[in-house]
Structure formats: structure tokens, C-alpha cells
């Protein structure tokens, strides 16, 4: 177990270096000159040269890479170019908003999709199964944008059940007032793919011999379904949820943009539009780090849920 953990952590190092290099060279060789972006439209030649010198852009690339690595290791990213807000502060204040929206969405998604998937998998091939499959296919083919545009218009603008957009300082107010509509729309969109996926997990389990054995022993369908099948299906299911966790931290940026939620996804989007490189670079590197750690945690959890799994 410990040996596994240490080896996995050790394996992350080259990947992480890769992510850092990717981000570094992408912005260094394909991005616009930072000095020109920072100088603004009316910058003189001397001003641009001064900024270049100040940022160390005139040094050879390996020195710049060194400065960059030092920033990452010391967690000192400096400040956003556009707003001069320190990046640590920026992440610290935007992340809670993203989590406030995304955690309820993840929970609701799972709670809604699970029973539907179980039900249709149990009645595979029946009219209800085929109907649900057709509905999910069509629902999946409509862009997320359309759901948000129409949902915001109908539920908030026309019917006035929810505020059109907004955010407050209190988490409770946010959860009760501002989160319900975005969460509702995201769940409507998210349930279709989840249902299809979970259905395939259940179908897979229902085909196993142990199900036939359990039935042959005369167990009730409820016992077979909820005690045997559900428990076994929980393994791929939990893994799936685990792998979708890192996505939470980026948040659904579309939701954040439409509903003016000051979250991380919206911040990165704004940074792309402003050419605010430090924000994008920091978000990419740290979220890559986080993704790898969460994936490792998921693998460990896998072992916990299913004793048959041997970590090598």
C-alpha cells in the first residue's frame, strides 16, 4: 500500500514537469509578447523594452524556465496582469463560489440518474427502456447553451421563480437563492449522459452468473437488485464519480458566465479574453496537479470498496 502510494506519487513528477513545459513553451513561442500586452496600446518602444527587462524576457529561455519553476514550487505566482490581484487571493476567493454551485450539481446528478438507470437496465428492451434511451439521445444532441438560454428566459425572466443572475457574500443565501436555477439546468443536461453510462454498468452486472444463482436460490427480485447488483455496480460507479471530481474545480464555466457567478471557470474565461497569461498558466498547472492527486485518491478508494482489487 505505502510502496504503491510512494511509487504513484513519484510517477507524477515527470507528468507534472511535462505539464509545466507544455504551458511554458505554449505561451512562450505561440502567445503574443507579454511586454506588448502589458504595455497597452500607447506604449512607447522604451516602455516595452523596460517591461521586457523587468519580466526577464530578454534572458535565454532556460533562465526564464528556471524563474517559472521557482514560481511554481514556491507557490508565488505574482499578480494578475489585468487586475493586479494576487493570484493566491484570486484562487482563494473564486474557488468557494465554484464549489457552492458544483457540489450540489454533482450530488443531484448522481441521485437522479442512479434510480433511472437501474430501472431501465432492469427492464432492458422494454418500451420504457427504449423511450428513455431515445429521450437521452435527443437531449444530448441539444447544446448546453440552448438549455441555459431557454431556462434562464422561462424560469427567471418570464415566470420570475428565480433571480436571473447574481451572487451574494453569504453561502446560505447563495445556496437557497442563486444556486437552484443553475443547478436545475445543469442537472437536466447532466442526467442524460449519466443515465446512459450507469445503465451500461448495471447491464454489465445483470449479465453475470451470480445474478442467475441468486435468483435460482429463490431470492426476491428486490434482494437481487439492491443487495447484489447495486453493490457490485457501485464499483465502476464510484470510480466514475471519482474521475469526474476534478471537473468540479473548473466548474461549469458556461453556468458561471451566464449566471454571473464569480467562480474559477469564469475567471479563466475572462483571463483568456484579456490575455492575462499568469491566471491561465497558474490555473492549468495547479488543476493538473489536483487532477492527478484526486485520481490517485480514487484509485485508493477503489481498493477500499472492492477488496478483490490488488494495487500494483
Amino acid at each position: 500500500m505505502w510502496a504503491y502510494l510512494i511509487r504513484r506519487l513519484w510517477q507524477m513528477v515527470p507528468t507534472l514537469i511535462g505539464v509545466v513545459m507544455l504551458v511554458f513553451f505554449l505561451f512562450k513561442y505561440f502567445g503574443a509578447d507579454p511586454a506588448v500586452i502589458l504595455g497597452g496600446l500607447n506604449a512607447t518602444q522604451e516602455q516595452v523594452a523596460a517591461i521586457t527587462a523587468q519580466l526577464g524576457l530578454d534572458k535565454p529561455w532556460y533562465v526564464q524556465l528556471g524563474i517559472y519553476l521557482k514560481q511554481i514550487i514556491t507557490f508565488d505566482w505574482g499578480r494578475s496582469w489585468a487586475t493586479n490581484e494576487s493570484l493566491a487571493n484570486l484562487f482563494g476567493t473564486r474557488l468557494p463560489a465554484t464549489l457552492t454551485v458544483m457540489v450540489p450539481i454533482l450530488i443531484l446528478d448522481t441521485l437522479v440518474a442512479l434510480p433511472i438507470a437501474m430501472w431501465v437496465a432492469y427492464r432492458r428492451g422494454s418500451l420504457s427502456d427504449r423511450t428513455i434511451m431515445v429521450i437521452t439521445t435527443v437531449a444530448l444532441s441539444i447544446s448546453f447553451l440552448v438549455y441555459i438560454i431557454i431556462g434562464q428566459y422561462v424560469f427567471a425572466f418570464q415566470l420570475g421563480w428565480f433571480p436571473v443572475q447574481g451572487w451574494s457574500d453569504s453561502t446560505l443565501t447563495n445556496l437557497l437563492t442563486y444556486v437552484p436555477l443553475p443547478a436545475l439546468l445543469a442537472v437536466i443536461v447532466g442526467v442524460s449522459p449519466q443515465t446512459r453510462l450507469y445503465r451500461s454498468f448495471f447491464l454489465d452486472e445483470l449479465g453475470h452468473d451470480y445474478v442467475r444463482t441468486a435468483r435460482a436460490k429463490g431470492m426476491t427480485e428486490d434482494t437481487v437488485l439492491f443487495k447484489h447488483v447495486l453493490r457490485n455496480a457501485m464499483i465502476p460507479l464510484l470510480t466514475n464519480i471519482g474521475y469526474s471530481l476534478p471537473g468540479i474545480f473548473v466548474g461549469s464555466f458556461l453556468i458561471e458566465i451566464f449566471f454571473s457567478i464569480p467562480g474559477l471557470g469564469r475567471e479563466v474565461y475572462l483571463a483568456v479574453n484579456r490575455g492575462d497569461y499568469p491566471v491561465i498558466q497558474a490555473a492549468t498547472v495547479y488543476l493538473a496537479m489536483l487532477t492527478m492527486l484526486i485520481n490517485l485518491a480514487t484509485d485508493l478508494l477503489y481498493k477500499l470498496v472492492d477488496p478483490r482489487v490488488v494495487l500494483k
Partner: protein
Amino acid sequence: MTAVLPMAPAKVAHSEGVWRTAWRRFRNDRVGMVSLLIVAAFLVLIALSATGLVARHWQAEVGVPNAPPTVLGPRPPEDLGAIEVPKGPNVDLSDIDPLAPRYKEWAERAAQMKTQETQRVDTLPFGGDRLGRDVLSKAIKGSEISIFVGVLAAALATLIGTLFGAAAGFIGKRIDDFLEWLYNVFNAVPDILLIFAFAAVFGRGIGTVVLILGLTGWAGVYRQVRAEFIKHRNREYVRAAEAIGASASSRMFRHILPNVSHVILVRLSLLVVGFIKAEVILSYLGLGVPVDQVSWGTMLSEAQAELILGYWWQLAAATLFMAVFVTAFSLMADAWRDALDPKLRGAD
């Protein structure tokens, strides 16, 4: 009974090829066939629009602004408000108006300019947008660009994924280690962040969207192609090819590739659907198709402002076109997968 020995050795009963078998299975799939027809119809429409036979003048402002669809009939004339329009001749200000001496000259110059008076229609089949452009033409032109971007980006991602996967799976060793590392790097960054980072440095435009989606989306294809090549690498037919002196590249691309191409085709079609959706979102955010062109995404972004004013037709047209195409294409991809790889049937 005459026992005639065949002169030539009897034709070896050719076993049905994988494509032929797949096509036979596919033909029996009614849903798949209908979807194929719909997709084919869209492709014809795109070909017509790309050659300029339809929707060539999508930018022409043919209708009144926000012209309603024909079925709704023309909009009632707007109430101009309580202020009465003054009647009678204008007050003569020429003695104090400093511009007065030049009015005549300007009127003459204006008369020299030819202006074309276009009769703007009150209604259009699918309605008109803010500028009075025909929404139907826009939707057709938008289909062309959205589908074009989706297909091209998917082709690029598949090409990268296939080449990398073939190299990693067949050659192995150092190359495999390197490509696995690259895969892990791309896999570690959440997709949308990767797309944003690429969009930040590459700027805007159709070519850019194709490039961004292609460069960030190859990982899935790579993974599967690599696994297939590892599986096939030591099969007997490949060893036989090696024994008669087939080069490494010939074994990779002439012998193994056709045998795994069905896997690649299925992946490709799944990517097309994903990339079309991604293009719509990127264009909506202003990171995709530029403003002088139209795609489903730019139509949706215009539609949002129109909806608040009650003009819903552009939203409806873009959604309808996209939903029909994407549904048909996904069902077709599912049918292909079932036909090409019967083991996967029903799995999703």
C-alpha cells in the same frame, strides 16, 4: 452424373470481408439507415451551400429587421407613441443656419449617388434576424461551417491519435515511453482548460478552432489505437508479413491498420459529435468562428439577445438544425459501432 474435375483449383470460398459483413449488419438496422439518410441529406445541403448554389446571399438583408416567420404573418405596425408628428412646412431657418448655403450642393452630390431601393419583405419562411437576414439561409450556411469544423477537427485529432498510437503500440520501447508520457501530460489537464490555454495563444478564427480541438482531442484515439496495435503486433499474419520481408512501416500501415480501422472509424464519428458541440460553445464565447461568418454557435449567441425581445425564431432554427444533425449522426455512429464491432453492442 458426370464427375468433372475442375480444371482450375476450385475458387477458395472467400470469407466475407469485415466491411461487407458490417454493411450487411448495418443495412438491417433501420434506425441506422434512417440516420444515414438524414446525415447524407445534410451533406448534400452542405455541398450545395459550399458551392454557392444555396444560401449564397445569407448576408443580404432581405427582410424587415426581426421579420417574423411566414406562418405568424407580418408584425402589426408599431405604435409610435403619444407625441404627434408635426405637420406643415418646416420653419425657415436659412438666415441663421450656418450650413444653409451648402445644402443645395449636397443635394446635388447626393443625387449623383445611386442608391438601390430594396423592397424589404415583411415575413420570411423561418423569420429574419436583427438585420433582416434570412434565418433559413443563415442556418444552412451555419450548418456548413459547424459541420465542416467538427469533421475537420475530428479528422485531425484522429490522424494525430492514429499515428502516435501506431508508433507507440508497434515500435514500443523509448517511443512508447515518450508518447505515454505525452498522453499523461495531456490527460492531466482538464479538457476545457487545455482548450482555453490553446485559445489564449492561438487567437480566433475557423482554422484556429480546428487546430485547438484537434490538438487537444487526440488522447482517446491514441489510447485505443495503441492497445489495438499491441494486440496485433505479434499476430501470425504480421509475423508472416515480416518473414517475407515487409518493412516496419508496411506492416504498420498496410497490414495492421486496415484490421483496426473499424475502431478508428467509430472513434472518429464519436469525436465529430463532441467537436460540433464544442465548436458551438467556443463560437458562442467568441473564441471560435469570427463575426463575419456564421455558425450554429454565433446564431445562438445572437439569439440570446433576441429572445428577451420575443424573437424566438433564430434560436429555434439553430437548435432544430443542430439537434436533427447531431441526433442522426450519433445514432448513425452507434449503428456503425454495433455493425463493426458486434461485441460492443448495447454497451454505451
